[in-house]
């Protein structure tokens, strides 16, 4: 097993052989990947050394201290957080070899084609069809809420390959080439005025069978790996006090005494307390993870952050009075990186409305907590044994 000392040594060797000051970013990232220091928990030859995931911090600290370039992880979050673990778990050797290097180095951006206009919370009801044609699949349908589709080279895609089976069983998972002529990407403008996401129309898109991940009909199982990794990525944040949405409103309160009223004060202090307690809960969750005892608490944190973001930003708009009547800019833009706390109070208010919908609606998350954490029975289900084509829609 690779230990911390050995990793630190290997990292310093990499830095000596490819000094960041005189090496191009591309060359450095390539060398880092080849040295197994990209993601140390990945297998050797695929950017890793099969080391414990927690030791990545050792490598990152050495690299940061040396001023080495990184792979701009925020720009390629879907590739790193969702596509890569799925390719690793279900890909063939050829697929892993082909996709993981360019993905990690940011040479190829990835997006995710899961949600559809008719399949949101009930993702397994999706209707995009994939029909076998020789060595290829022909895919037709519509996907929505796709970040980065306009920059992406590849997409992870789930599509229906057998409409005669119950919905969970007739799905297959593919890697879709976003440069295929049948792929049309249109920006999806949101209530904030900007377009973080896209609609993606797929018309007779040809996907070679060699780009299927997992078995035919196993797509739902493969997708669980993707979605589980999405939740892990959300759980790891560490914030300082007033680090989230409560920061800007607290600063405004302190700087502008003329805005203060008794009613606003009571509501602000109550929310400040809730935000601080939520932050402590996140810290407790992190301590549990570090101690090797992850608890079920993570499933609930997103619920709290969604509610607090919405309540705090709503109060902030109200606090600002006349200025709360204004908005900074409605111009349609396509931001590369989304910062929920960025821009002005009106933006925060509108953007945070999405927090209780994206990545699982709060209502669905409450069901998950009730069933998986508390062990309460699920509601009677009418869709389990019905062929997908016979479901109500």
């Amino acid at each position, binding site marked *: 097993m690779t230990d911390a000392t050995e990793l630190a040594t290997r990292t310093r060797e990499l830095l000596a052989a490819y000094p960041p000051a005189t090496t191009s970013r591309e060359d450095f990232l390539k060398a880092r990947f080849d040295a197994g220091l990209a993601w140390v928990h990945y297998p050797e030859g695929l950017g890793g050394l099969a080391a414990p995931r927690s030791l990545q911090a050792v490598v990152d600290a050495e690299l940061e201290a040396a001023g080495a370039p990184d792979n701009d992880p925020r720009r390629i979050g879907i590739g790193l957080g969702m596509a890569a673990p799925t390719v690793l778990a279900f890909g063939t050797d050829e697929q892993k070899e082909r996709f993981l290097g360019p993905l990690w180095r940011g040479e190829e951006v990835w997006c995710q084609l899961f949600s559809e206009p008719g399949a949101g919370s009930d993702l397994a009801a999706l209707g995009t069809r994939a029909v076998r044609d020789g060595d290829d699949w022909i895919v037709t349908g519509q996907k929505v809420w796709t970040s980065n589709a306009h920059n992406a080279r590849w997409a992870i895609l789930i599509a229906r390959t057998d409409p005669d089976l119950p919905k969970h069983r007739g799905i297959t998972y593919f890697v879709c080439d976003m440069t295929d002529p049948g792929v049309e990407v249109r920006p999806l403008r949101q209530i904030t005025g900007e377009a973080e996401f896209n609609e993606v129309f797929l018309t007779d898109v040809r996907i070679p069978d060699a780009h299927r991940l997992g078995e035919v009909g196993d797509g739902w199982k493969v997708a669980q790996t993707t979605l589980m990794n999405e939740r892990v990525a959300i759980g790891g944040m560490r914030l300082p006090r007033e680090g989230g949405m409560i920061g800007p409103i607290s600063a405004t309160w302190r700087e502008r005494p003329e805005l203060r009223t008794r009613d606003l004060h009571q509501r602000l202090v109550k929310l400040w307390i809730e935000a601080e307690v939520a932050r402590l809960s996140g810290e*407790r969750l992190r301590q549990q993870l570090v101690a090797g005892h992850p608890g079920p608490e993570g499933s609930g944190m997103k619920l709290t952050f969604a509610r607090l973001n919405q309540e705090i930003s709503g109060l902030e708009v109200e606090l600002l009075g006349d200025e709360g009547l204004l908005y900074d800019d409605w111009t349609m833009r396509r931001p590369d990186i989304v910062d929920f706390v960025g821009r002005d109070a009106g933006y925060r208010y509108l953007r945070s409305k999405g927090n209780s919908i994206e990545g699982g609606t709060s209502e669905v998350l409450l069901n998950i907590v009730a069933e998986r954490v508390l062990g309460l029975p699920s509601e009677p289900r009418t869709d389990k044994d019905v062929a997908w084509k016979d479901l109500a829609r």
Partner: protein
Amino acid sequence: MSDLLYSETEDELRSAVRSLLTDRCEAAQVIARAETDQPHDHDLWKTLAADMGLAGLLIPESLGGQGATHREVAVVLEELGRFVAPVPYLTSAVIATETLLGCGSAAADELLTALASGRSIGVLALPLSTAPSSSYAEVAEADGKLTGRVGAVADATAADVLLVSTASGLYAVDTTADGVRITPQTPLDLTRPLATVTLESAPGRLVGADASAAVRRGLTAGAALLASEQLGLADWCLTETVAYLKTRKQFNRSVGSFQSLKHRLAELWLETVHARAAARNAADALAAGSDEAPLAAALAQAYCAPVAVHAAEEALQLHGGIGMTWEHPIHLYLKRAKSDSIALGAAGAHQGTVAELVDLQAP
């Protein structure tokens, strides 16, 4: 950053206390005892305080205590809250003890030694509702004789010694002394009896020159650790209600399969997750002697008090009719939670403290 987990020692302590309370503090017994003239369970107190040594957790070993910290005390309080145990732990082993620890006098140390052994019960003679930040009426002192009247003093009927705040310092008064009258009141929470303390030229011993600093220290520790009692109480309400809704059948299905009820329980679970973080943070801040202890205490109390009330109210509603009966223990939890929400300052008082400490000034 504070340590928000439970240590192995703390887990072991919890198991020991829980197994004792499971045997000796059954809900039916607690309900039956509540209406007798002995509302405190003195036998249980003797086992907890003296045999297990839990009364002296905060007291240094040099004074016969365990030299442990607020983190362990918090775990004990979680379990006492889970069983609504009618013992004077919060009042004697936390508030009175911490007040005396703030005195630093030989007389205070002597009392601490008595409290550590569990043979003597001490109670701070202030209304249970007094917040660490609030002002309170002091008792008059003249030549060591105390005269005054204080209502809603928790566990006074069980006390051997009262700690009385006067303008000239903190005094200890034996409850058996001449001029001391302790009159039981009818409390909302039958498991934490209240009484009016009347002093008429009662003889007192000076135990601390600066009464207000010592009292503030006692009340701050009380408020911070009451959060753990509230957490234990809320956790019981959640666990009990989840278990009941899994077995209760109506409309040919388990009541716990109805989404409206599941969502309420999931929300409640989330509140207990947050309450645990707040309560642990407060206990750890006290244990570490952190400058942030007053903030952590106010934060925990402002957050956990409403959670405990909400948990008990949800437990009652979701149990339906059975929850409204005297026979079912939920009412003990509701009454304790509601009275705890006033104890050591209502949420509003603690919100005010937080606002001041983090510079969110009122208009």
